[in-house]
Structures are given as C-alpha cells and as structure tokens.
C-alpha cells in the first residue's frame, strides 16, 4: 500500500512536469491548428542547452533557465515565421511533416555536437531525498513540480488577465473572426510558438535531471505528450493538465503493481478507452474538423 501511495505521489509530481510540457503543445495546437510533432525534440533541445550551460558556466540546472527560456522563446519566433507561417494550403497535414523534419534536424544537430551518448543533468538535489511518512521523496521532483506550477500559473495569468492573452484565446476560439476584429494572428501564432518552446525548455530541465537522455529521446517523449493532449482534448489547457496527472499517476502505479516495462503501456490503454467513450477527449469540443 505504501508503495502504491508513493507511486501516486511521484505520479502527481512528475505529472506536473508533463502538464507543463503538454500545455505548451496544446497551446500551439489551439492557436495555430498544427500538431507540433517536434515538441519532444524541443524538450530534449532545452535539456541539452541547460546541460551545456551548466557544464560550461558551472550553473545550477534550474538557474540556466534564465538563459535557455529566452533563447528558446526567440528560437520559437524564428522557427514559426520561417517554417510554419509559409504553409498556406493543407496546413494541418503539412505542418505535421514540417515539425517532424524540425525534430529530425534537431536530433541530428544534437547528435553532431553532443554525440549519441546518454547524459544527465547534475545537481545536489538529483538524488538527495527527504522523508514523508513511510517513504522518501527526492528533492528534484518537488522542485520540478513547484517550478512547473509557477510557470503554469504565469501562463494562466497572461492568458486570462492581459489583453495579449485575450487575443491568444480569441485566436484559439476562431482564427478568422480574430483576424476580422484586427488581431494580428501571425504575431499571436509566433508568440504562442515561442511560449510553447520556452515551456519546453523548462520541462527539459526537469526531464534532464530525472532521466538520462540522448538526442533520440524525443520519440518517447512525443508519443507521451501527444497521448496526453488527445486525452485532455486538443487545444484545451485545463485538459492537458488533468490528463497529464491522470496518465503519470496511472503509469507510476502500474510500474509498482505490475511491472516497470508495462508502465508506458498504460498510456495506450487509456488512449483506447478515451477513443471508445469520448473521442473528443476530456475537455474537447466535438468539432467537425477537416484536413
């Protein structure tokens, strides 16, 4: 029982990190109607940037975010305007291919500069732990959870309490109508992509401290993140957060009750159940979408 409880606590803590990564992905979908298949690669890129910064500047991994988040944000603006904005026809399908290509390019570049060897971010809190009741919790999970909570909080503040946030939400609701009332949807899209990338950087740091990673790690990440946003309902931030918590808690419990090798399988089981009973996801609206 203690094991299950411990797994549940761990699931909530890591769920918070996945909630942040998935909300960036679902925000990008919501604003631009594109599936960013490269999101996993962006998280890995963020992790490598922090790795390089902490190694060469001797910084604490979390502190490197001061550098990597703005860098990733600007990179997001550039990538969006160079590769995604030019897509005019058949956007949804083509954007999948373009972001896939970006993922491959990032994987290749990271492999070139950092080799395919596994690395991990180091900090004093990566294995140190403190006791809660009958079990111990590693500090990094708590720090990571708090960080992601803080960033999610800022994101919600921006989205719901600023004019720019309102224009982002308007674009998510109806792109054409937003354009008609004078919102520069291209600018909104670029900023949304930038925000998505900055949150990927933050998620990447926590991912990089808790997991050994290499340039190819993005495949595993993206399949999880995509499953999460489908469960939550594409384009729903609340959905992404709830879904991330559900997925990660079930995964961690499965790992202790059944076996760690079957843990990721839970993702697919939940996905199939969702498709059976609620194809639009938890918070999704059943839209008649077309490619």
């Amino acid at each position: 029982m203690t094991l299950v409880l411990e797994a549940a606590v761990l699931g909530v803590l890591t769920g918070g990190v996945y909630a942040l990564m998935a909300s960036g992905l679902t925000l990008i979908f919501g604003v631009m109607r594109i599936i960013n298949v490269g999101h996993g690669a962006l998280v890995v890129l963020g992790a490598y940037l922090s790795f390089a910064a902490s190694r060469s500047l001797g910084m604490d991994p979390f502190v490197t975010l001061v550098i990597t988040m703005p860098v990733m944000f600007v990179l997001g603006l550039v990538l969006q305007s160079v590769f995604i904005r030019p897509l005019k026809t058949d956007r949804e399908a083509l954007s999948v291919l373009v972001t896939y290509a970006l993922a491959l390019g990032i994987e290749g570049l990271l492999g070139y500069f950092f080799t395919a060897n596994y690395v991990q971010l180091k900090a004093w809190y990566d294995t140190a732990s403190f006791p809660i009741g009958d079990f111990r919790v590693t500090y990094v999970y708590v720090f990571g959870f708090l960080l992601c909570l803080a960033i999610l909080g800022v994101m919600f503040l921006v989205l719901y309490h600023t004019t720019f946030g309102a224009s982002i939400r308007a674009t998510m609701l109806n792109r054409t109508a937003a354009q008609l009332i004078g919102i520069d949807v291209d600018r909104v899209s670029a900023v949304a992509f930038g925000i998505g990338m900055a949150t990927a950087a933050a998620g990447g740091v926590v991912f990089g401290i808790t997991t050994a990673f290499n340039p190819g790690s993005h495949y595993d990440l993206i399949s999880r993140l995509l499953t999460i946003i489908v469960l939550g309902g594409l384009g729903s931030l609340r959905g992404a957060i709830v879904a991330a918590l559900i997925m990660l808690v079930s995964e961690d419990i499965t790992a202790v009750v059944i076996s760690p090798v079957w843990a990721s399988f839970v993702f697919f089981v939940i996905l199939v159940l969702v498709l059976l009973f609620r194809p639009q996801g938890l918070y999704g609206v059943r839209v008649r979408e077309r490619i």
Partner: protein
Amino acid sequence: MLQAGVLKIAGIIVLFAIALALPAIAPDPATTNIAVFTMMYVGLATAWNIMGGYTGYISLGHAGFFGFGSYTLGLLLAHLGVAAGYTPFLLVPVAGLATAVLALGIGWFALRTRAATFVIVTIAFMFMLQLLAENLVGLTGGGGGLGFPVPPWSGDYFNTPYYYAMLALATLALGISWRIRRSKFGLGLLAIRDDEDKALAVGVPTRAFKLTAFVVSAALVGMIGAVYGYYVTYIYPQFVVDPLIGISMVLMVFLGGLGTLSGPVLGALILEPAQLWLAYNYGASRLYLVLYAAVFLAVILVLPRGIVPSLTVLIERRRMRTPPAAPAPQQAVMP
C-alpha cells in the same frame, strides 16, 4: 487524346521492362541493393497513398504495420522451421493477412477520430506495437531481436530475389491503387477527402470505405515489411517499427503528389536513392539526419502540392495560353 493514351501505355511498358531487366543491366550488388530499397519505397509510398492520398487521413503509424509484417514472417519461419531459400516468399501473403486483421482492429478504433486526432492516434498505435515487440520477450525475443534464416545465395545473386519480390509487391500495390482510383469505391474515398459530411449525406458508406482503404493499405505495407525482414535477416523493435520509415513514405507521397497514381512512384524514385546516398556519405556522422531534414523541409516549403499536380497545372496553363489551331486562320480575313 487517344495518342496521349497510347503514349502513356507505351511509357508504362518501357518503364516496367526496365524495372524487370534491371538486375541484368546493373548486376553489381551495390546497385541492386539500392534497387531493392527503392522498389520497397515505391511499394510503401503507393500503399500509403491508398489511405493517406485518397481519403486525406494522414497516418504516421504505418511503420507499425511494416514492423508487424516483418515480425509475423520471422516468427512464422522460426516456428514452422522453414529453411532459407524461396519458400519464405510464399509465406509473405500470410504476413499480409495477419497485418490486415491487425489493421482492422486498429482502424476500428482510430477511425472514430478525424484529422489531427487521427494523426496522433496512428502515432500512438505505432509506439504501442513497438513497445509490445519489446516487452513480449517470450514471443518476439524483445530487445534481443529476431533472426531470419539466411539464404545460401552468392553475393552477386543475393539481392535479385528480393528485388523481384519488392517489384512484385510494388506492382500489386500500383495495380490496386489504379483499380481503386477508377472505381466507385475510389470516388467515394475522394469524396471523403473533399468533404466527409457531405459524402455521408449523399450516401457514401464513409466508415466502411475508410476502414477498407486503411486495411488494404496496411496489408500491403505489412507484406513489404515481411520481405524487408527476410532481406536484412535480423530485426529488432526500434529497427523495423522505425518512425523514420513511416515518415519517409509519407514524404515521398507528398513530394510526388498526394492522391495521384504516379506521384508516390516518382517521389520514391527520387527520394530513396537520395536518402541512401546521404546515408552512405554522411551516415557515420549525425549530419545525415540534418541533411535529410533539410531536404524534407525544402520539399514541403517549395513544392507543397507535389511534383505531379504542379506539373499538371503547368501543362494545363500552357495549353490554355497557346490558342487552338483552328481559329488561327481568322486573322487572315483581317485587312
């Protein structure tokens, strides 16, 4: 018009004759190796197009069916104790049948969704198959991989049987694709691509049609995967359920022209040799992936509609601009 038709048929016959004679024209193993992989992608792209091109449902998970076909043949050979040689080729349709059954199940779930969600669901199912191949160690050998019996053929001849097997499957895929394109079923699929709700409203059984296209497309990919497994003689989960294989066939279709008959063939004939060349020259460093991604982006951004549709538009425009021969003499009447 008739002349154009005759020209077309003659062209197809010439191309097919070249494809048939290729191992005799260029018997060097390095070349036939490229030919095997290129023909494999001609088949894969054509098969993918039956679902992705005709119905507009983009599946990024076809690598799952590819790997499933591979594993099915490998396990069949191992459990039936089939010796290496030509017999394994006869079991390829069995792998296709098994893949069709799997695709029926997956399609039944996946096709409850549309557009973006469908894309994601196919990716998820692909990774699920990869994980199953990894975890069912007792059946598949897990990460340790699965070996195929190795045929005793000489190095000069080794590639040839595989080449003809791939050619046969590519021809089959093309034949099916052509047949579908000219049938009422094919019209229904195109109607789904253009507007699924309207198609349903005018009485197209959209669900059954989509599922049929999905199953046919997957079964072909499964058979090609089976031959591939036998060709490379050793497979493991990440190697055959490789997302890169899944995305390559999609890219080829987009380069050639989505939903056209010749587009996927053209795309594969251009991209696969290029891809192999990149892998051969830059494969050692990870730059190979960067270059591949660059080609990928260039294709999508420069030719988003694909070669065949772009050419068709160009030819049509040319035709419109040059006035027909008949009205021309009227100019003579003018003083």
